[in-house]
């Protein structure tokens, strides 16, 4: 039994379909021209394909971001922008180039899968669509009766202009790719489309700049160095990838440390097992639903993970670890102690102020015009839900918990946030219902 939820069109499927259409089209148009691929041109195309395959297997993954293959994308862009000096390559239509890139990416993906490593089909599809856009733009679309590729051979004394044109074409490719990926993750996380795309562009900006210029560099240097340009000019990008990977690993470590900090109260027997993790998961889902940007989501997540840290200062655990059942003054003190510990790090000040305000009732906003941070209101609701439902989703526990929360609506809890909780819960129960049926 399928659950049709109105006419929502999945960005995931659009991307996959577009990639398929491109592959079929490229194969169709290139089949007649395959005899152009011989001798030096063939060797050239093959070496680019090799670089793409290797690039697919040397992937880059960073917590909180999709893993991707910058070397592969740079090599694909470079192939798109390359013209072999004698002019053979100029005759190669974009269909052959796109087909070559698609084949190489498929081989790389296959190798990756055979090695038991992950290979995101959607990510590969988005990158293929992006590169195809650059290819068509650079090699197919006539500007004033000539394609950009033909123009560039006439600008022999103005190679910098060629560089600019190459940068523009590859930036278009990256833009298309980021738009598709943004749309996909917005739908997956039920977050606002524009916000997600903006986050996507911001997060990928550095690496994208590096690979766009690398693509152009190889295309330009090929003029003087022929194929040697490919391995040589991938060196700066390798350095960049190394740096970004190191950054990724320290982010992962940071996340693990926050995790350890968050499980302190569990281990000390103050809170039920997994409480903080569940509250964090719920809070993040609500934050996305309310359209918070990625940076604030990260802070919300950290604060939610650490929201019970203050209990560590208690002499005896609260029964069941549920702060909800403690007296308001005690709740306040726990929140304050937790915020103090976090503030002493000197680097998590925002998280500390979120913690400080997590127990304040919503009426303080209404009656005294106090400015309660939205993340604090979210954590208050998520924490109440987890305490009341005992961490069990669905069933009677969930509806009883929601009933109790609705009793405090507008007084204890922010109605907007509670609405968001209802939406998030409805989505998860729907998602849970599909495999069950």
């Amino acid at each position: 039994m399928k659950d049709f939820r109105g006419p929502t069109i999945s960005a995931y499927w659009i991307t996959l379909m577009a990639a398929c259409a491109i592959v079929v089209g490229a194969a169709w148009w290139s089949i007649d021209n395959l005899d152009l691929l011989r001798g030096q041109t063939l060797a050239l195309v093959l070496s680019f394909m090799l670089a793409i395959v290797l690039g697919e297997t040397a992937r880059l993954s960073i917590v909180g971001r999709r893993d991707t293959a910058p070397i592969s994308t740079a090599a694909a862009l470079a192939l798109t922008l390359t013209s072999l000096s004698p002019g053979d390559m100029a005759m190669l239509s974009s269909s052959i180039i796109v087909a070559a890139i698609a084949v190489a990416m498929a081989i790389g993906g296959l190798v990756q899968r055979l090695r038991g490593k992950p290979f995101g089909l959607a990510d590969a599809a988005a990158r293929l669509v992006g590169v195809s856009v650059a290819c068509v733009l650079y090699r197919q679309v006539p500007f004033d009766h000539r394609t950009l590729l033909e123009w560039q051979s006439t600008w022999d004394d103005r190679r910098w202009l060629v560089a600019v044109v190459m940068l523009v074409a590859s930036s278009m490719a990256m833009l298309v790719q980021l738009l598709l990926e943004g749309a996909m993750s917005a739908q997956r996380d039920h977050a606002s489309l524009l916000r997600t795309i903006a986050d996507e562009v911001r997060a990928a900006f550095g690496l994208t700049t590096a690979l766009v210029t690398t693509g152009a560099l190889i295309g330009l240097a090929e003029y003087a160095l022929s194929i040697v340009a490919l391995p040589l000019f991938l060196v700066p990008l390798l350095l960049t990838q190394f740096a970004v990977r190191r950054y990724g690993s320290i982010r992962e470590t940071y996340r693990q440390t926050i995790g350890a900090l968050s499980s302190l109260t569990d281990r000390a027997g103050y809170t039920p097992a997994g409480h903080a993790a569940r509250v964090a998961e719920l809070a993040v889902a609500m934050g996305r639903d309310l359209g918070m940007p990625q940076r604030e989501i990260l802070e919300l997540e950290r604060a939610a993970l650490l929201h019970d840290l203050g209990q560590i200062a208690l002499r005896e655990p609260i029964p069941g670890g549920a702060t909800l059942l403690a007296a308001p003054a005690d709740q306040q003190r726990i929140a304050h102690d937790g915020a103090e510990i976090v503030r002493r790090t000197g680097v998590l000040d925002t998280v500390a102020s979120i913690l400080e305000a997590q127990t304040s009732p919503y009426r303080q906003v209404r009656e005294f015009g106090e400015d309660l941070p939205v993340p604090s209101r979210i954590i208050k609701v998520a924490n109440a839900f987890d305490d009341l439902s005992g961490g069990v989703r669905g069933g009677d526990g969930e509806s009883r918990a929601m009933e109790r929360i609705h009793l405090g609506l507008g007084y204890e809890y922010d109605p907007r946030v509670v609405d968001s909780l209802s939406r998030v819960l409805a989505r998860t129960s729907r998602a849970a219902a599909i495999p069950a049926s």
Partner: protein
Amino acid sequence: MGLVSWSWRESNVGHRVQFSFTSIVLLASAVIVGPVGAAAVGAASSLVQTGRVKPSVRVFNVGMISCVGSIAGLVYIYAGGSQAVETVDGPSALLITVGIPVMVAEVAQCVANAVLLAGVMRVANGIPMRGQVGKLLETTGPAYIGYGIIGFLFVVLWIPAKVGWFSAVLVLAPLFVARWAFVQYGDELRAHERTLNALVTAVETKDPKSAGHSARVADLCEWIAESLSLGSQELQDVRTAGMLHDLGKVAVPSRVLRSSRDLSDDELVLFASHTTIGVEMLSDIDFLKGSLDGIAHHHERFDGHGHPDGLAGKQIPLAARIIAVADAFDALTTTRAYRPSLPVPDALIEIEQRAGRQLDPEMVGALVRALHRHEWAPTVHEEGMLTRGAAVDHDDPEASDFLASRQDLRVRIAHEPHPHTSMSQTARRAR
């Protein structure tokens, strides 16, 4: 040439890894505008250096960088590098007449830089020159190979590929991104270190009388590790282990931690489990893998009567032996409710008496050497803190001796499941 140095100046000014950029740019200019030009570019780039720089330092920088630049230029010519790159045609010719000489020039530049820097350090601070040159070459050498390749790319793009000044933008863009990522890495690393300390803060919130103990042990561990000339990674691991060695105390109930009478046998077993629990809590953090051994075994004894595993002698991980000494020394020099803090010489006598029994004599020796070089002030608490009675602190050597004499307790520590964990598991099942 004026245009050349002007356009490079822009990309040169006021960056933290400015040096690497300078090096690439110098190398490229050594080829494009020759030794004299490279000297001029070098001088220009250090002249416009922003920020407060002492005049003498500025003069030295200008001199050094232009010197290094012209050396690179001369070596390039000497190594058979082509001075008219635009006439070189074909990739293999480019590699031979430009690529290889560029690499040679880069090596020369690296050595010249190291020698000059070591020289000025010799003059200014009296640091021996030979060791310093070796150290500089070791730390910066590999990076220079990379700079060599990038410098070559720069030249190729500039002249044979006819891109001209715009190549500066193209070549440096990926490097700027790399630099940005390195800076981010540094920021995140510092943030992480601070956050790691929050773990300690949390324990000390629960057990206020141990405030500062972790940080002091971490310092002592670092000093001892220095005396033993450990490598930088090992040193860092030992320091972190010292910092977090008592983290597991978080799982010990407050009534036991803050007990005002001697602990019962059950409570002693419960308390002793903090080593194992600490390791369990931190085992998910990849970064701390190297520190876990030290935390797990910091209550082992050299004579094999410690806990949890009863390891003896060199079986005990090095980090754990270091922490054991640091831990005992800090405990002795801290005021307890039942005795004042010992002055350093008295504490050292006490520690030395325990060498070979509780503590590793080698580590004790390292501590003594470390205390010759560092000041140590005993931690004296206000009387007010001490009005209530207290059990013997678990870090005091006396406590270690007591457990060493009670084999029955050590068997229980090694084999009994941690009581508290099983309690919370029952609680979970009941939910």
